[in-house]
């Protein structure tokens, strides 16, 4: 197990600052994800760690060992490539044995280690197959086995699942996570898929234009986004802005937006602060006529402007008093009667409102 320390690393391509002074401390055995939109520098950062991209500035350490000055073939950082990069001129066993041969592992030992690695990724018996005889998912497993068999200090994965179909993607990401946990290896995973990042990671760094926007655990990133960018990138949300005034109860504050008052969690804003906050659609609950909102919750009146049925979810487009839009989502289909009315009531727990620290 190896901790990875990335300090102030930067790299520009011409005028593009692909990675702009990023610092990260990744713990031993952690599954760490770099998440961000296309072109934000995830791949560049990962390739810097692997040694395929030179640094303009900064340093990278694996544990106590400084690696950014070490040639890539001596870094012992196993990488799984987006397109698998399976050697087409070698069999499955040949591919997996490749790194062992480079390390001059005795021939007798190679066979056993290859077999063990293939078993680990459920490919026992595929030794003598050629890459062109394998499916995408199987190739991905070979790539992982080939990487793990050399017992790398860290595991680097660049969008390893993006070439697989949706169902296989879910299956493989679970397997990758289980493997990583059982081997207790430090892993850095790159993806632009927020759901994948949330599902698989111990911690996530959300990147934007070469910088880290926020670093934290999945629930923290999702529920307490620090910036508007993170809030929006992590899924549909309502982003609202206004000036805080005194709340009804001591210590709480409320904000008037769109002709409605919104309650903020206690202690998150002082009167006369300009605040921007995020309220996730699924935090809003439809209150049927005659029903009561849970105690401590806050209610809103709104006009129902549209309903979108998405299977597991139903999305409601609401309009506040002055026409400002508000999105809500409920699991399953709400009662027919509730949707027939034009004016409806929704409620939310003020604790689910996140005031952005860096609007």
């Amino acid at each position, binding site marked *: 197990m190896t901790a990875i320390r990335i300090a102030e690393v930067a790299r520009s391509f011409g005028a593009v600052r692909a990675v702009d002074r990023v610092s990260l401390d990744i713990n031993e055995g952690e599954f760490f994800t770099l998440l961000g939109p296309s072109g934000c520098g995830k791949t560049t950062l990962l390739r810097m760690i*692997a040694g395929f991209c030179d640094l303009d500035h900064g340093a990278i350490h694996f544990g106590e060992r400084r690696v*950014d000055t070490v*040639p*890539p*073939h001596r870094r012992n950082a196993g990488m799984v*490539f987006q397109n698998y*990069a399976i050697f087409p*001129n070698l069999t499955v066993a040949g591919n997996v044995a*490749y790194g062992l041969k480079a*390390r001059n592992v005795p021939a007798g030992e190679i066979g056993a280690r290859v077999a063990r690695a293939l078993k680990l990724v459920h490919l026992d018996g595929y030794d003598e197959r050629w890459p062109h005889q394998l499916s995408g998912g199987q190739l991905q497993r070979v790539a992982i086995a080939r990487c793990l068999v050399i017992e790398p200090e860290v595991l680097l994965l660049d969008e390893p699942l993006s070439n697989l179909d949706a169902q296989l993607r879910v299956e493989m990401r679970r397997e990758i996570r289980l493997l990583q946990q059982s081997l207790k290896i430090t892993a850095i995973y790159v993806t632009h898929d927020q759901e994948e990042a949330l599902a698989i990671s111990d911690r996530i760094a959300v990147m934007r234009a070469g910088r880290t926007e926020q670093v934290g655990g999945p629930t923290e990133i999702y529920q307490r986004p620090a910036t508007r960018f993170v809030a929006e990138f992590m899924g549909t949300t309502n982003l609202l802005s206004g000036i805080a005034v005194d709340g009804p109860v001591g210590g709480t504050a409320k904000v008037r937006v769109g002709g409605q008052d919104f309650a903020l969690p206690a202690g998150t804003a002082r009167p006369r602060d300009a605040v921007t906050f995020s309220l996730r659609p699924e935090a809003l609950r439809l209150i049927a006529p005659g029903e009561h909102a849970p105690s401590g919750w806050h209610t809103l009146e709104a006009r129902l402007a549209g309903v979108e049925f998405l299977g597991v979810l139903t999305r409601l487009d609401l309009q506040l008093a002055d026409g400002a839009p508000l999105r809500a989502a409920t699991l399953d289909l709400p009662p027919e009667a509730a949707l027939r009315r034009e004016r409806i009531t929704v409620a939310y727990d003020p604790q689910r409102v996140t005031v952005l620290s860096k609007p």
Partner: protein
Amino acid sequence: MRIAAARAGFPLAVAAVAFAFLGLFLLYPLFGVFKASFLDPTGVSFTLDNYARVLSRAFYRASLTNSLTIGLGATLATTAIGVPLAFCLARLPVPGKPVLLALAALPLVLPSFVGAYAWVLLLGRSGIVSQALRAIGIDGVSIYGKHGLILVYTLQTFPYVLLPTLAAFKAIDVSIEEAGQNLGASRWRVFWTVILPVAAPAVLSGALLVLMETLENFGVPFVLAEDMPILAVEAYKLFIGEVGGNPASAGVLGVLLVACTTVALLLQRYYLGRRRFATGARRTPPELVVGAGLRGLATAYCWGVVLLALVPFFAVVALSFMEYRGPVLHPGFSLDNFLRLLDRSQRPLMNTLVLASAAAGGAALLGVPIGYVLTRYRSRLADVLDIVAMIPFAIAGTVLGIGLVISFNSGWLILTGSPLILVLAYLVRKLPFNVRASSAILHQIDPSLEEASINLGVSPARTFLTLTVPLMMGGIIGGTILTWVTIASELSATVVLYSGPWATMTVVMFQALEGTSAGAASAAATVLIVVTVVPLILVHRLLRRHEMSLL
């Protein structure tokens, strides 16, 4: 500071070897030619006298204008022939297309001066066709002079225009054409306003290759120009000189030749760079549905051009099996020509095989790593290397030969008289092709394979040798054989550099041209044709798979 040294060892080593080699055997000899042309007879002070002296003579001024007019004439003619040919092959239902395509590339590899000689056998003063024409009262048909040169060049170099233009036509996505029609343009209008402009850079880059090739060519004008001065030939004559060579004047013509070809090369690179927007069709355009008349016309045109280009080669092979008494041809099958040739020319044949193999092997050993570094390790140093490695394209074989002799006939390294100087000249001349072919192969291999190997702990140099080279092997073999074939028929540097026992088959042929023995010359021509065509047939499938041609 960028910490680049971590992975720069291998590319730096390759670049160092490449620069050392090209510096010594390309730039230094070139510098020698320049120096000779700019130094006074004492050899110490700078002077423009040599230029004044050479250019004051109408004869040498004419050599420049002749070379340029003939070059431009051939360039226009190949374009006029090549573009319609490309369109027919890309879009019209012409029967026998695969065969046609294979044959169409052939004129580029067949030895050009053999072709020129074959035309003389057909249309020369005592050529069989001219004699037949004279018998029915048509006189004055001649293959000699400007028109003959342009005709022969056109038929030999049209593939330079055809192949890239064909690729460009095929690379234009159908949707572009459909969009044009959808917006209300007729097919004809779409062709002129969309398809042709998109293909234009490819056409121009091919046409400029024709210009370079015709400017540099030595053998064809040697056979066909007669008394008309041509740059490459006059440079050679001045250098070899019957009454002692004149390196200064030869240098002047050499520098003029290099100046012309360099301009052509720079323009060619410029248009090649602009070709990119034409590539990458997701749906190649389908064949057009046309009437029987147009179809017949297209078929006759395509087969006509391609066969006309190959006719002289068939003819010379056929003639070589006939009986000659002196220069006079007698009908009747005979192997005499070959027996006589074999008597005298076993050694030259061996020389050709040995020298071509050594040079082709050397070009692969040097060219493949250079191509690899240029493709995979982009950097400022690589850009410079790229330019230097392309310079031989613009250097006529005659000029390189002269430079090598000037530089290595005395001093610390004497190479004249040894076969090594021939091998080095071939190697330098064919290096650009090898480098480009290697880059092309590498573009088909995903670089992440190499990264995966390095990531697994194999050093970059070992990754190149144990992973990349095996993956490239088919392409490397194909490219090396193409190189081999063109070296076997190299003439322009060979005639300057060969010495005594190291004469090659092309030299035998060359000497036979000067003599009167048409029988021996046609037999030598046949041997050269066989030496080029047989290896190509053997690796034809390999070349097809790697989409490799001489371009």
